[in-house]
């Protein structure tokens, strides 16, 4: 069945009202880098599609010490912001140039692993997601947005409209292991933020991508650091814990075994980089 309608709302209210009207029959698309390949292949055959490129959701700015990112801001826009350097590295880790000109921050939440290398950085930065429907707006921590493989906390009629990213209070590191130097799917990606006080770790965020159903926090790895100096022993313990709690999978890029090994290696490298 051919696609019956393609909507290009010019405001977010219009987008939300289309979503309320057509519900699950309406495929929401931003940059098109996830939806269009499936449509081109005939894997996805939506009756109706809504494109968000003109919905005015691509703003990027700072307010109250936080970075505000619109859902359809592109990876290229993220490369251009200076507020949170880790987000530049994460944007650089997504696709090649042309894809970065199209792929959006909001869309990255819906990218099945091993994709999602931008969202994993948002997770390490404690980003919040803004959701809007006709019955109102709500904001949730990004961590609560993911509920399983390709499932999210989005309610029917809800649209991801943007993000708030607090200024990092600790040191940050972003490290992606891939098969190639650039434009490569992840074997594993690690984004971490570590807060230190007097040589002791007081708070830690370690987020992993491509080793689970979605980008996720490595809670036991974080716990292994808290209260410790960021030394070799603590880093080793955190890397071991991350390996244990990772849920790697086998695909054309890497085997489950290799992904698990590389999770330990990459967490260790990332934290060692932070410690120096």
């Amino acid at each position, binding site marked *: 069945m*051919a696609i019956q309608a393609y909507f290009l709302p010019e405001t977010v209210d219009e987008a939300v009202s289309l979503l309320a009207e057509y519900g699950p029959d309406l495929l929401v698309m931003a940059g*098109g880098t996830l939806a269009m*390949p499936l449509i*081109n292949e005939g894997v996805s055959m939506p009756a109706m*599609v809504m*494109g968000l490129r003109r919905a005015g959701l691509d703003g990027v700015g700072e307010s109250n010490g936080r970075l505000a990112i619109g859902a359809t801001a592109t990876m290229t826009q993220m490369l251009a912001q200076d507020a949170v350097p880790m987000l530049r590295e994460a944007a650089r880790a997504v696709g090649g*140039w042309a894809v970065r000109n*199209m792929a959006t921050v909001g869309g990255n939440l819906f990218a099945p692993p091993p994709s999602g290398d931008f969202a994993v950085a948002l997770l390490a930065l404690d980003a919040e997601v803004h959701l809007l429907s006709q019955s109102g707006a709500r904001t949730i921590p990004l961590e609560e947005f993911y509920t399983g493989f390709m499932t999210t906390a989005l309610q029917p009629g809800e649209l991801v409209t943007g993000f708030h990213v607090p200024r990092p209070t600790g040191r940050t590191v972003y490290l992606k292991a891939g098969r190639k130097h*650039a434009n490569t799917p992840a074997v594993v990606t690690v984004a971490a933020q570590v807060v230190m006080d007097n040589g002791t770790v007081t708070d830690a965020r370690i987020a992993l991508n491509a080793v689970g159903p979605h980008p996720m926090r490595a809670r036991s790895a974080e716990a292994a650091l808290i209260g410790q100096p960021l030394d070799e022993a603590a880093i080793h313990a955190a890397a071991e814990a991350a390996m244990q709690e990772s849920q790697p999978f086998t695909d054309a890029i890497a085997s489950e075994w290799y992904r698990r090994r590389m999770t330990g290696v990459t967490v260790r490298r990332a934290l060692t980089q932070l410690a120096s």
Partner: protein
Amino acid sequence: MTAKIVSFNLNGRDVDVMVKPLTTLQKLLREDLGYTAVKIGCKQGGCGSCTVLVDGEPMMSCLLPVEDVAGRRVTTLEGLAQGDELHPVQEAFFENYAIQCGYCSPGMIMVSTALLEHNAHPSREEIVEALSGNICRCTGYEPIIRAVSTAAERMNGNGSR
């Protein structure tokens, strides 16, 4: 299924086209308008052979609905040469034998042209990074990288880093 009229600028000329919902720019350009430099490789955004410039920025035309480029400026390889005179990037590809089977060449040239607009003297690393979304399955990357350096020198003088 209502067709829509979409207006945009194509290679310096204003065009109005009638498209069915979600028709890709790739299909329109290649099949309907005859701009066959826009290749069909993977239709996944993974090979770069369909790359066009939208307002000077490289984009994958296989992932781009025509309706999204309404009012914007689209450039294909056909828009680079001035009459019989090749664009310096095309010239450099030709001279450096940067073309084997030729299928990736239009995409490579579009990205290279955009790169030199952004960065007059790209380093080798910057050239490689910029072209990382374009696959040459003949694996003839070295002459392509050389061609971009040659074009940079010719267009912007000798100052390559």
